[in-house]
């Protein structure tokens, strides 16, 4: 096996020479190209949300119905000659055939197959035919034909006409790792007092809070922006009050993050202040910020995490971050899950928690994932294509709205938030585009001059795993207003548990995409510090929507100002932990008054 020099650091096209042991079988050349590493992404975007399933990011043509610009890169070939091209893609909306069509151009020649319309929604390798490579460096581009979310994971050139790339996830992951040379040791990402994984509001606040007390902090976020659901990629506004705090000091960092209230799904990206959030973090000399880095592996010993491994979602370069404390602010509870932390997914039963709002039976029902969208009025009439592959609407039932709000939501146990993140997003897109196409073509009086300004392609998640701490917050804690000695973050949001809207269920049973809620008002209450660290992984904190609560209590704790304050507390606790060389639990057991002292002062 031999690793070949790539043309550019960022292009992971690697020539792979496989020498079979069996005599007589000739060496084969593989050139493996990850699309997310293309030098010029054109109008294509990187999607890493399916990493837990396909172990890779991919490129997607998110053009809201208008073909996007080609993505292009240069690929190096060590050997000239005939190669078979394989393209890894899927038909994301096979009803019966999806709209995500695209073509491949190699050295100026467009290959004849059209990809993305196979009628099969599994990620697969498709035969692209044969090409004759007569140059060392060849330009490769992918050409979108529709603007409707065609996607391509990787491209393989092989000089062995009979070679079929691995189909199964495990085999492909191994193959991919070898060809991308990911089997080599990751680069050193540094050693920190606190490694925060997930740069949503919770993670960002945790990092800032710790760094301001002098801790050396890594903040690792798998998107190019900070803010999570409050970023311009998802566009949810911050809720939860900070002016009713038991401890008024909390919320200061949250306030800095707050970019004003643009509502949900505002068509103007700037309203969400991505750049400002990054500036604030970059101004902290103790924070090393790693954007575009997805953590997917951890190392541990004796129930203690020693390192997390992150992979750059574009270059696939891997980094290893070591640290004293780790904070799982991924929303998905990924770090805890990888480390073997106790966690919960879905709803507990009434008999288990004694909560009046709990489900009769425990199940895997979670609140849903949203892809918000907005249209804007324009001066001229515009058209939008028919979308036969999308959900279908009629005069009898459609959503008569020019923009979305939180109710556009899919999940509710029909799909798994983590492992079906792609299907969830795609279902949301089918609802959005189907409905929009209906409005544009059948309600011209109202919508002829409206044009889609923005549709999220990153799903906004509400509920995933909840890592279990030394305390699990319940409905009774909230409604009885129990003030534990370690009660720190004040929460004010209602118990806000969504369910499919009745009418939407009637028309789209099992495929609901529109939600309702009942707000159960609560008096301000405090969340104990013990909900913010794992009960069995000894150096793991949590902040955000994946803290230790029941499903019912999560209904109230998940709003972002509240999540941000959890982050602030985690920062303080890590500081005290370090000072006394103790674990998060040790802080509770031996140094609680000192922690509460910082919070109070």
């Amino acid at each position, binding site marked *: 096996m031999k690793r070949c020099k790539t043309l550019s650091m960022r292009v992971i096209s690697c020539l792979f020479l496989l020498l079979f042991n069996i005599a007589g079988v000739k060496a084969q050349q593989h050139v493996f190209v990850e699309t997310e590493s293309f030098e010029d992404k054109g109008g294509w975007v990187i999607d890493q949300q399916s990493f837990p399933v396909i172990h890779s990011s991919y490129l997607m043509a998110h053009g809201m119905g208008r073909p996007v610009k080609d993505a292009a890169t240069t690929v190096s070939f060590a050997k000239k000659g005939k190669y078979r091209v394989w393209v890894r893609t899927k038909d994301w909306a*096979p009803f019966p055939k999806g709209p995500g069509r695209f073509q491949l151009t190699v050295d100026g020649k467009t290959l004849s197959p059209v990809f993305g319309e196979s009628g099969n929604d599994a990620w697969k390798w498709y035969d692209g035919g044969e090409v004759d490579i007569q140059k060392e460096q060849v330009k490769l581009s992918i050409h979108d034909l529709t603007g409707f979310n065609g996607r391509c994971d990787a491209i393989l050139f092989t000089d062995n006409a009979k070679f079929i790339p691995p189909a199964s996830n495990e085999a492909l992951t191994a193959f991919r790792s070898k060809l991308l040379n990911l089997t080599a040791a990751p680069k050193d990402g540094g050693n920190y007092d606190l490694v925060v994984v997930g740069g949503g509001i919770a993670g960002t606040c945790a990092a800032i809070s710790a760094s301001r007390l002098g801790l050396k902090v890594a903040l690792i976020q798998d998107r190019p922006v900070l803010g999570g659901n409050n970023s311009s990629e998802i566009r949810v506004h911050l809720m939860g009050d900070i002016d009713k705090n038991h401890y008024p000091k909390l919320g200061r960092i949250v306030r800095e993050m707050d970019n004003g209230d643009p509502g949900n799904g505002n068509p103007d990206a700037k309203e969400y202040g991505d750049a400002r959030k990054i500036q604030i973090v970059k101004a902290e000399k103790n924070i090393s910020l790693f954007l575009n880095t997805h953590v997917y592996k951890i190392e541990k010993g004796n129930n203690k995490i020693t390192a997390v491994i992150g992979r750059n979602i574009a270059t696939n370069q891997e980094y290893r971050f070591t640290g004293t404390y780790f904070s799982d602010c991924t929303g998905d509870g990924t770090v805890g899950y990888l480390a073997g932390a106790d966690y919960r997914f879905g709803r507990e039963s009434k008999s288990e928690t004694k909560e009046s709002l709990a489900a009769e039976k425990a199940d895997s029902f979670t609140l849903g994932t949203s892809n918000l969208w907005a249209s804007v009025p324009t001066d001229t009439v515009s058209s939008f294509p028919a979308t*036969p592959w999308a959900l279908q609407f009629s005069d009898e039932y459609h959503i008569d709205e020019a923009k979305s709000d939180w109710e556009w939501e899919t999940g509710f146990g029909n799909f798994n938030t983590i492992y079906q993140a792609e299907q969830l997003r795609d279902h949301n897109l089918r609802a959005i585009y189907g409905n929009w196409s209906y409005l544009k073509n059948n309600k011209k009086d109202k919508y002829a001059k409206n044009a889609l300004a923005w549709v999220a392609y990153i799903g906004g998640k509400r509920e995933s795993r909840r890592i279990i701490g030394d305390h699990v917050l319940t409905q009774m804690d909230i409604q009885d207003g129990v003030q534990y000695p370690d009660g720190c973050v004040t929460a004010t949001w209602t118990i806000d548990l969504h369910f499919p809207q009745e009418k939407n269920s009637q028309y789209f049973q099992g495929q609901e995409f529109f939600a309702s809620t009942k707000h159960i008002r609560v008096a301000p209450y405090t969340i104990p510090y013990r909900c913010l660290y794992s009960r069995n992984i000894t150096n793991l904190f949590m902040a955000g929507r994946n803290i230790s609560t029941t499903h019912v209590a999560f209904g109230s704790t998940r709003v972002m100002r509240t999540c941000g304050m959890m982050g602030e507390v985690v920062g303080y606790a890590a500081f005290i932990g370090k000072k006394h060389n103790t674990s998060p639990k040790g802080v509770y057991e031996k140094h609680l008054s000192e922690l509460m002292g910082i919070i109070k002062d």
Partner: protein
Amino acid sequence: MKRNIIIVVLMVLAVCARAAGNGDSLRTRSYTVRVNDTSTFTLKLAFDKNETPVYYYRNIFTPVCLTGECKPVYINLYWDLLGNYVRYDFPPGEILTKADHRPFKPDDYTKLQGILANTSSIFSELQMADLIAPGTENLADSADGKTGATPKKLKTEVIEGAVYTCFTIWHLANGPVKKEMEKITAGYKSNALLHQFLQSNNHHYQYWAMERVMDKEGNITKGHESDIKYIISGNNLFTARYALQKAAPRFFVADTMQLWLWSTYQQATYPLQNAILKKLAEVKMGSELTTRLAANLTASNNEQFKLMLAALNAQRQLPPQAMRQIAGYLEDPGPGDAAALYALLKKFKPDNEVKNKLKQYETQHPQNEL
């Protein structure tokens, strides 16, 4: 304005008049609707030249009051025959004004129509008191939330400066009067009206009439078969699917019906196609339809392959031509599944040609794979 007006008595005043406010000269009939012990109002039903009822309307005069100050509103509301709000207009010279007495702008009138036509408006959950309750402005806005009357939500759903006007008219348009109209219309039920409803493209009419021309088993009253076909092949997926699912399988047994269903399938949207395929599993298919289905077995995707296969599997017998066609896919089942095709063919009596194909398949797929 109280939400729960109780309409106690319905008095028919067979007064003939001309429909007001719409220029044409339709004959009308007036009904007196009693709201409570002391008040009634007049609801009018307009008829066309053939004496068929066409719509309801009401000439309204109502005070809209806000903290003690009231202003009169004159407006005419129109409903379809089942009491679904359709439109509004005004008696000559009347307009709407806002709190500061400024008249509505053209955009406000357009917006008003949207507000009144929205049956799930936020107003449906609100009482007048909610709008003027002190502290409304302090309600936390949704996290997610539609916390009832959040000021923000209200802003997008009402005309600023005319919240009470919108609220009052919305409740007049969408209130309990709907039930009274349904009752009156029921008294006019006739074959002609049912035809008209079924062919109307008004889904409220269609559902209402379907309830009356189809029994529990889905048998269709004689004379209304083509009305049901019209709905199934129409462009409202939801009424089409409902009619299709409700119709008795027997309705689709005749050859001509099966050919019609097949051509409907070819024009249908994907979800309706699937509904048709599901229905076929309950229907005894003739050889013509079976053969066409077999010919298309691998033309679509895996989901439709499975549905078609289930329909074929549900038959007592398959015509030889269809069997041959299916055997032809054993080698390349496209989005389908060869093992499932094999199992299907084994179930029926294959002719020699098919038997040979099955044998071939068996040799290529030794026993343990089958």
